């Protein structure tokens, strides 16, 4: 099943008033490396030269490929993202979130939260 990302992006990206960038996926989406690269590029564009804290809402995701996961918690992402708060409000997304944290030590602070509020609260310390 291929989704044409240009026509129908599965990720919704926006920056809130406090400067935190929110990544939200359409329900039942499968995230591939391609989506991941696009998302980080967009995040970089929004940051405009500054690293930004990011909230990633894993709710409703069907799957995230391993290379996409690696990319999110990898060096490339750390160039533009100061910290990432993963929001997982279901057992499935929580399992996924834990795998996001990765086996290796990530190059930026990443934490898993059960609600957007808690996530934003933690991220405020990373706002430049």
């Amino acid at each position: 099943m291929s989704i044409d990302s240009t026509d129908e992006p599965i990720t919704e990206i926006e920056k809130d008033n406090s400067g935190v960038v929110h990544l939200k996926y359409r329900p039942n989406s499968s995230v591939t490396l391609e989506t991941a690269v696009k998302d980080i590029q967009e995040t970089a564009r929004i940051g405009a030269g500054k690293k930004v804290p990011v909230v990633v809402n894993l709710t409703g995701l069907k799957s995230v490929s391993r290379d996409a996961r690696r990319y999110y918690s990898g060096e490339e992402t750390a160039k533009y993202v100061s910290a990432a708060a993963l929001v997982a409000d279901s057992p499935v997304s929580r399992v996924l979130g834990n795998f996001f944290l990765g086996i290796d030590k990530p190059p930026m602070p990443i934490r898993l939260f059960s609600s957007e509020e808690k996530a934003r609260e933690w991220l405020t310390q990373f706002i430049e």
Partner: protein
Amino acid sequence: MTAAEPRKKDVEAVSEVIQRIATGDFSAKVPLSNRGDAFDAVAMGINLLGEEIQAYRIEKEEHERDLTDMLEGLKKSKEESEKARKELKESEERFRRIAETSIDFIFQIDKKGRFIYCSPSVEKILGLKPEEIAGTNLQDYFMPSDFMKAFDRFKEVLSGRNVGLFDMILLNNRGAEVQLELSAVPIVEDEQITGLQGIARDITEYKKTEMELKEREELYSSLTQAVMDAIITIGDEGKITYWNEGAEKVFGYAADEAVGRVATKLVVPEQFRAKMDEEFEKFFETGESPLINTITEAAAQHKNGNEFPMELSLAPVRIKGRWHAVGVARDITERKRSEEELKKYTENLEREVKERTNEVIQSEKMSSLGQLVAGVAHEINNPMAYLKTNTEFLEDNLKDLEKICGEKGQPLFEEMRELIDSNMDGINRVTTITKTLRRFARPDDKGKVVSDVNEGLKDTLVIVHNRLKHRIEVHEEYGDIPRLACNVGQLNQVFMNLIMNSSQAMDEGDIWLKTWNDHENVYVQVRDNGKGIPEEKLREVFNPFYTTKAEGTGLGLSLSYRIVQAHGGDIIAESEIGEGTTMTVKIPVEVNE
């Protein structure tokens, strides 16, 4: 149905996937129910774990592959280096084998000159075994005089320059010189020159042969220089070692008769032999002799016993470390003869010149005296002879006539006797004059006769008297001078010239004749108070044909000067215009001729 009670279908699905994962099929996935419940979470966890394991597995496999590749590479490079080492060892072995068996001396030295390696052939060259040489320095073997030259070469090699072949001289264990020809290249390790390796060849023998060859060449080139000359080489004990065709001709012995015999015994006349033997002995000891490198004239002896003059030159030649003499001898009998002939010829020529000169003198004499001397004197002699005879006859007849006529004719006879006496006196005087004239002229005077110069001067005066009388007063002052060995006729000619010149320099006046002597010379001076000779002409008057007189020949003084010179003497002219002229003839008492 509660969470505590999983549905049988779900459990089966999970256990199947776990089983597949356990057997290695990591692509196995638990289908999600999409209920979002605990089952889905477990299923998701299992799926993700499977993925991770698979990824890990893949990564591990990649790692293993890399590792194997690495190991493989390592193994390969190890093999390669082993191979290279083997090859190196082989080439080293090969080099060593070449070095060990080479007759050439192969060596390696470090930058300080210490031997690192020496091939066994060094023993033949330096008389030392490689192990004796190891660690010693090349410098220890250099011949001191050659050291700097070779050292410079080595320095050049160590600076990386290509110097090609060069020579060096080493001293072996017995101190003998060993000439080596070598080439050397630097030893480079890690781009650094650490020493040099060279290959040297013993060329001592070669050099020696080369030298011998050169000596031989020298010998033969000198041999071929003159085939007509006798060329002999004389070796030990003065024995002839070489005898060329020229020698056969010069000395009369064939080569096989001469070679091996003592040279001096064969060709040197007995009276000179001892001296020659001595010279040769000295020569063979020292290579030196006064006979060497000069040309000596010596007496030689032919096979037929004849002695003849030869010209001999000896040259030393060192053959195989021994002095040999190369003698070149030339029979100079012919040359001597032609020399003699030449001498005779020269003498003849000289005599002829003298004769001609005499003739010229004679002709001058003739011109100045006219027929006076040669002609008149001779012509007068005959009539005088019969005049005298006739007068004596007359005298005798007169005596007879007196006896016949008695006392009567006495006064007449008296007168006649006086006349006859007077005639006789006149005849005697004329005879004296002719005698003087002939003595004066003496054209036949060939050599020198011990004579009284004063007498000569007086005779001259008699001859010229007529020209001087009434006009010129002659003052004579004769010293007690020694008699001179001289050509008096010629000297008289000189005196006459001087007296005549003086008389011609004035209409009236005086001439002073004076003779004297000191230890060395006799002086004859003719002085006048005539018109004199200008200072600048004083030299010229002796030049032939210089004359200021209308009828002069200009030869008088030049001939006079030559005559005096021929007596080893000189004429000194002094003059002052209007005062007079003094000519002084100086003749040495001892005339060396």
